[in-house]
């Protein structure tokens, strides 16, 4: 039981990374991307391939995973983001499927539908982070989530974060205030993709094998749900959202009801969450951004 709960926490952490990226893309910049699963897959396979065939350690593969995901992000972002409208959503939907298509068919590199097995465990100073001993792995995941949270929260508060929100609220006004809209959108998309790539690396050293079927559209939808449920534009809320969605996802196993509850139950619930939240609480369960510029200052003023 404890072990199972730890598993849920580990997956919450891995998905929280993707959700943090999605939040920058969707919550801050207002762009709808539907392929965190695609970047997740790219990160996983980068680590899997480099570790198994070239013997690289996890730490060496992490930046490659992040960079390659970001590069693909730029590749889809450039043609779609300079346009008005929601072409990004469709392009990313297609991209996610194509990634899986390629993974399934490029046998020589990806092992096709069988995927890649026997990925070496991650080590740190000759200490092996054995995924079967979940505590150590959980510590690793938490560490990376905390670092990412700190970096992204800071990014959100920086001038770039403010520019992204301005773009979300009104692109034309943002441009007329000197903000290079396309550049920022592509940056946000690439950064959001790169953190999903890192999540993918972690996933592959956790499950020690990768197959194309772990990177379906449902993964992207789950990530989207985490952001919508927690609260768009709030990184802490999104991490909480990741935990709740993972709880729902593992609810049948957790309660021992997996024979009673049909496997589609959770997916239908995810769909419902999106619709219901949009209608009744579009700001998410936590809602408002955790930080507001100027508030500190005015409080300080009040204290004077």
């Amino acid at each position, binding site marked *: 039981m404890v072990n199972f709960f730890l598993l849920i926490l580990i997956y919450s952490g891995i998905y929280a990374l993707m959700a943090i990226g999605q939040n920058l893309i969707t919550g801050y910049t*207002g762009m709808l991307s539907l392929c965190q699963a695609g970047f997740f897959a790219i990160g996983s396979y980068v680590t899997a391939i480099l570790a198994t065939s070239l013997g690289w350690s996890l730490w060496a593969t992490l930046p490659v995973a992040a960079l390659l995901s970001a590069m693909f992000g730029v590749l889809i972002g450039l043609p779609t983001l300079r346009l*008005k409208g929601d072409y990004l*959503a*469709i392009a990313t939907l297609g991209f996610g499927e194509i990634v899986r298509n390629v993974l399934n*068919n490029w046998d020589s590199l990806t092992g096709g539908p069988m995927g890649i097995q026997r990925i070496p465990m991650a080590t740190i100073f000759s200490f092996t982070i054995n995924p079967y001993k979940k505590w150590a792995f959980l510590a690793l995941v938490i560490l990376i989530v905390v670092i990412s949270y700190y970096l992204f929260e800071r990014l959100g508060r920086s001038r770039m974060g403010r520019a992204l929100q301005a773009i979300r609220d009104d692109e034309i006004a943002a441009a007329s205030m000197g903000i290079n809209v396309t550049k920022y959108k592509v940056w946000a998309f690439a950064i959001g993709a790169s953190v999903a790539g890192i999540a993918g690396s972690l996933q592959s050293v956790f499950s020690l094998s990768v197959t194309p079927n772990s990177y379906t559209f449902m993964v992207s939808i789950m990530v989207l749900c985490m952001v919508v449920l927690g609260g768009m534009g709030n990184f802490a809320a999104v991490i909480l959202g990741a935990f709740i969605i993972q709880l729902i996802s593992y609810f049948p196993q957790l309660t021992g009801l997996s024979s009673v509850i049909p496997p*589609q139950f959770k997916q239908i619930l995810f769909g419902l969450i999106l*619709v219901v939240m*949009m*209608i009744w609480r579009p700001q998410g369960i936590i809602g408002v951004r955790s930080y507001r510029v100027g508030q500190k200052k005015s409080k300080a003023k009040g204290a004077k």
Partner: protein
Amino acid sequence: MGSLSEFFQHFVNGLTLGGVYALIALGYTMVYGILKFINFAHGDVLMVGAYIGLFVFDALRGSAPLGAWTFIAFFLAMLISMVLTAALGVVIERVAYKPLRKASRLAPLLSAIGVSFILSNSAAWAWGTQSRKLNYPFDNTPFEIGGVVITPHQVLVLVVSILMMVALKVFVDRSRMGKAMRATSLDQDTARLMGINVNVVISLTFAIGSALAAAGGMLIALDFKAYPTMGMMLGLKAFVAAVVGGIGNIGGAMLGGITLGLLETFGVAVFGIPQAMKDTISFAVLIIVLLVRPQGLLGKVVREKV
């Protein structure tokens, strides 16, 4: 390319595929024209339409042998499926999109993705994940005209899609309601001021788009089977078709659908793109169109008023 007859063979194949894409693309383009929003659930509405048609046809047919009755039963099933699917489309709009008309641009999109996910998973739950084939209502033995092999199914697809598109074009261009639709797509507020019931127009748009998707879904299920997630790829391709033609433009959706069907068929047959990567073609087409001519073949450049 081997010969002229081979060329025509691929052409006919591409045309039939394109006809179905066009039928589905119309639903995207009509909704986009009026609400400026991509109805992500459209592909899944199509899936539901295909299943309804399949069940109704099997029930009507019973164990009757192929013949006049099966032919009639097929069209009856198509009619019933179109009506029911139209109703589904209207209900979806009322429940999941209408409350969000004044909300942020993202809200209806996210809601639509939710609906799409609910539909495809409910279908998997109710009807199982295995794919089902809609039986041919006629003898599908191919025949040959001048070296080109044509199946009766292809004839059916072409006839049905062309008839429906012509009917739609006439309806939108000539009828009162069609005029109201065009007015609403140009300017919703003004249309309202002119006494047009915008809600009715929007419902009608969803009804027509969904009905056409149901027909398209049935035509697909005849050849490629129906399964709960069929809507995703088909929806994606139909959307690409709508963008290629110029989103929001009804004639454009037709042209885009046929263009995409031809590109896919020729891409595989002539340019040797592996069958497994066939789906990638439409994606590449989307990216190229967005780069080169984002307004699509027949679309106009729309400027936001400032």
